[in-house]
C-alpha cells in the first residue's frame, strides 16, 4: 500500500511548481464542480461562538466517562498497538511513506503544550511600553532627506588569485575583532522587546561533590520552569580552582511566556525584597542589547518557589546566579531603556 502511494507523492512534490498556474485557471472557471462543492453547502454558515445560548441545549446528565464505560461493558479494550497512533521515531526523509505529523499536532513527539496564559508583562508591553519606546527613540528626518549610502564595512580580497572569487570578505583592520551590530532606523516594526532570559549559575564546589549541582539544578528549575542544562569547565584555571572537564555550571534558557513570567516575578517580588541593594550596575550590557546582572545565594532564596519549601534544599547549597536578559535591541542604550521601562532599577552612570 505504502509503496503504491509513493509515486503519487513524488508526482505531487514535482508538480508543486505547476500548481499555481492550474489554480489560476481554476479560479476563472467558476462553473466547475469540485468534489468539495456538496460538502461546502453542508457547512454551517454561522459560528458556534456567535450562536445564541438557546441554540445550544446542554444535556444536563451527559457523562462521557459513564457513556464510554457502558459502551465497552463486557468487551475488551481496543488493542493499543493497532488503534493508538504513534508517530515515527525517526524522520526518514520527505519521500518516506510514514511521515511524522507537524510539530503543532498534539500527537507529535515534538509537541510542546502552550501558551497557558497571556502574561501581564506582555500585555503591559503591548499596551504601554512599546508605544512609549517608539516616542522616546523617535529620530526626526526632514522631508526629502535621503540616508547616506552605507559603505561596505568588510574589506574585499584584492589580487589575482582565482580563489578570491566568492570568498567571504575580510574583517576590518585593527584590533577590534568584531563588528558592532547595525542599528536600523526605528520604526513600529523594530521596537526592542524581550526575546529571552538566560539564568546561569557557576558552582565551583560541584567539582568536589555533585550534590551542589543537583541542588542547583532543582533551584533553577523551580524558579525558571525550565530544566537546567549542566556544563563542563572548558579550561584549567588555577586561580579559580577550576579543572578542565569537570561539571561546574548550570544554565536555564527561557523564552516566550516563561521568560515574561520569570521577569515579572523577579521585578515585582524578588528585587523589592533585597535589602540594601543598589540596583543593577549601569555599566552592564554587552554592546548588542543583552543586559546581565547577578544575584547572590541569599537573593535567589527570595524567589517564591524557593521560599515555599526552603527547608527541602540542603543548607548552604542554594547557588547564586547570573541573569542575562536578551532583547532585540541592537545597542545597549535601547536595551537599558527597555529594561528600565519594565522596572529594572539601575545605579551609576550610563556609558552609552
Amino acid at each position, binding site marked *: 500500500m505504502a509503496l503504491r502511494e509513493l509515486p503519487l507523492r513524488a508526482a505531487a512534490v514535482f508538480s508543486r511548481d505547476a500548481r499555481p498556474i492550474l489554480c489560476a485557471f481554476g479560479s476563472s472557471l467558476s462553473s466547475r464542480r469540485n468534489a468539495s462543492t456538496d460538502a461546502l453547502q453542508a457547512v454551517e454558515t454561522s459560528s458556534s461562538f456567535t450562536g445564541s445560548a438557546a441554540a445550544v441545549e446542554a444535556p444536563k446528565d451527559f457523562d*462521557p466517562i459513564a457513556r464510554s464505560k457502558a459502551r465497552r461493558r463486557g468487551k475488551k479494550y481496543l488493542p493499543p498497538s493497532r488503534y493508538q497512533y504513534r508517530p515515527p521515531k525517526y524522520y526518514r526523509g520527505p519521500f518516506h511513506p510514514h511521515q511524522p505529523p507537524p510539530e503543532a499536532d*498534539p500527537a507529535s513527539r515534538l509537541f510542546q*503544550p502552550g501558551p497557558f496564559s*497571556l502574561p501581564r508583562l506582555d500585555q503591559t508591553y503591548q499596551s504601554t511600553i512599546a508605544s512609549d519606546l517608539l516616542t*522616546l527613540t523617535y529620530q526626526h528626518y526632514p522631508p526629502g*532627506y535621503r540616508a547616506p549610502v552605507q559603505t561596505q564595512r568588510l574589506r574585499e580580497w584584492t589580487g589575482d588569485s582565482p580563489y578570491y572569487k566568492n570568498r567571504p570578505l575580510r574583517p576590518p583592520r585593527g584590533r577590534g575583532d568584531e563588528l558592532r551590530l547595525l542599528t536600523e532606523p526605528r520604526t513600529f516594526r523594530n521596537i526592542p522587546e524581550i526575546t529571552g532570559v538566560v539564568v546561569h549559575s557557576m558552582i565551583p564546589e560541584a567539582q568536589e561533590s555533585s550534590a551542589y549541582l543537583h541542588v542547583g539544578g532543582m533551584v533553577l528549575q523551580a524558579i525558571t520552569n525550565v530544566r537546567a542544562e549542566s556544563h563542563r569547565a572548558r579550561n584549567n584555571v588555577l586561580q579559580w580552582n577550576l579543572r578542565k572537564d569537570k561539571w561546574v555550571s548550570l544554565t536555564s534558557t527561557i523564552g516566550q511566556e516563561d521568560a515574561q513570567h520569570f521577569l515579572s516575578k523577579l521585578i515585582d517580588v524578588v528585587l523589592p525584597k533585597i535589602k540594601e541593594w543598589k540596583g543593577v550596575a549601569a555599566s552592564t550590557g554587552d554592546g548588542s542589547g543583552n543586559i546581565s546582572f547577578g544575584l547572590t545565594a541569599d537573593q535567589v532564596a527570595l524567589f517564591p518557589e524557593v521560599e515555599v519549601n526552603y527547608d527541602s534544599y540542603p543548607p548552604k547549597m542554594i547557588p547564586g546566579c547570573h541573569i542575562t536578559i536578551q532583547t532585540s535591541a541592537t545597542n545597549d542604550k535601547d536595551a537599558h531603556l527597555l529594561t528600565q521601562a519594565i522596572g529594572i532599577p539601575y545605579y551609576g552612570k550610563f556609558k552609552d
Partner: protein
Amino acid sequence: MNAGQQTTRRLASKAGNSVCRSCKDSISRSSYATAAAAAQSQDATQQNVPPVTATSPGQSYAVNAGVLLSRPPQITRDLHPFESAFFLYQRRLNERLALPFTRYFYFKKRTPADLEWKRKIKQRLTPARDIGRYKGYGEEAWNDELLVGAQESEFEHQVERLLEDAEHGAERPGEGENADAQANAAAAEAGRPTKKVEHEVVERPMPRITEADKKGDVKSLNRALQRTLYLLVKGKDGKWTLPQDVIVQRETLRMAAERILTQSGGVNMNTWVLGNAPVGHYQHDILPETLKTAKNPNNLGSKTFFMKARIMAGQLDLKQNTMGLADFKWLSKEEVKSAVEFDYWRQIKNMLAER
C-alpha cells in the same frame, strides 16, 4: 574630508530659521558617515540637504501645542472566551504530557502539610489548582474537554478556586462544615470541649469593575482599569478637545506641553512628558468663504502638535486653571470618538492606543 559636512551645515544655516534643531543634528550626524567614504563626499551635499520650502511670506498657519495626557491600563484585559478555553485546553494537555508532580520534594511524609495534600488531591485529582477536576494520567485522561456550560475555563472561577484552596484546603464549603459538625458532635458525645476550626481568611483581590465604573463617573481616574484613558477638556467655546494652547515665543513643544499641564490642571499632578517630538497633529483650516471676509486673510488656520504625556499620580484640579476650561473628562478611545467632533476625531484617532 570635512568639506561635505561644512557645506551641508552652511546650506542649512543659509536656509534660515526653517530648519529645526533636531534636523540640524541629524544632518551633521549623518555627514560623519559620508565623510568616511571620501569618494562620496561630493555626493553628500546633494543627499542630505533639507528641502527649503518656498512658502509665500504672507499666508501661514498658527502653531499650537497640545498634550495627549493618558493614564495607561492598570490591570490585565479580559480574555475572550475562546482564549480562556484555549488556555485551559493547553493546561490540560500539559497535565497529560508533563512529568508527574514531585510530591515528596514539597511535602514530607507524615506532616500536616502532607495530610492536607492528600485531602486536596483526592478532591481535584491533580496538583494544579485551577484546571478543574481532571487527572492527566490513567484510563480517563482522554476526558479533557469541558462540557457545555462548564465554568472551569472562566477567569473568575479559577480565581475562586485558588482562593478556596488557600482558605479551606480545597474542601468544598459544605463538606467542610459537615466534617466540622461531625467532629464537634463526636467531641460533645465524648465529653470533650468542642473545637471550632477557624480558617484563615484570605484577602480577596480588588474588583475589576470599580465604583466609578458603576456610577459612570468619567472624572475619576479609577475607572475603566483595563483601558488607556485620555484627558479631554471643555474649552471656552464649549467644544471637547485635548488640552492645547498657543506657543509662547521661543518655547519648545515640550516646554509648552508642561506649561499647558500646569495651567490647565494645577500642580497637583505628577506627569511625565515623553520625549521632545510630537506624536501627531491636528490641522484646523478656516473655510475659504470666511477667510475672504476675515480680518487677517493670511491666517489660514492653526496646526496643533500633540506631545504625549503620562499621568503617574494626582488628579486635575480646574479651580487653579488659567485657561478658561469649564470641564474635563477621562475617556477611553471609543468614548473620545463620541465626545469630539468628527473632523477632530479623524485627525487624532491614530494617536490613541487601541487598548
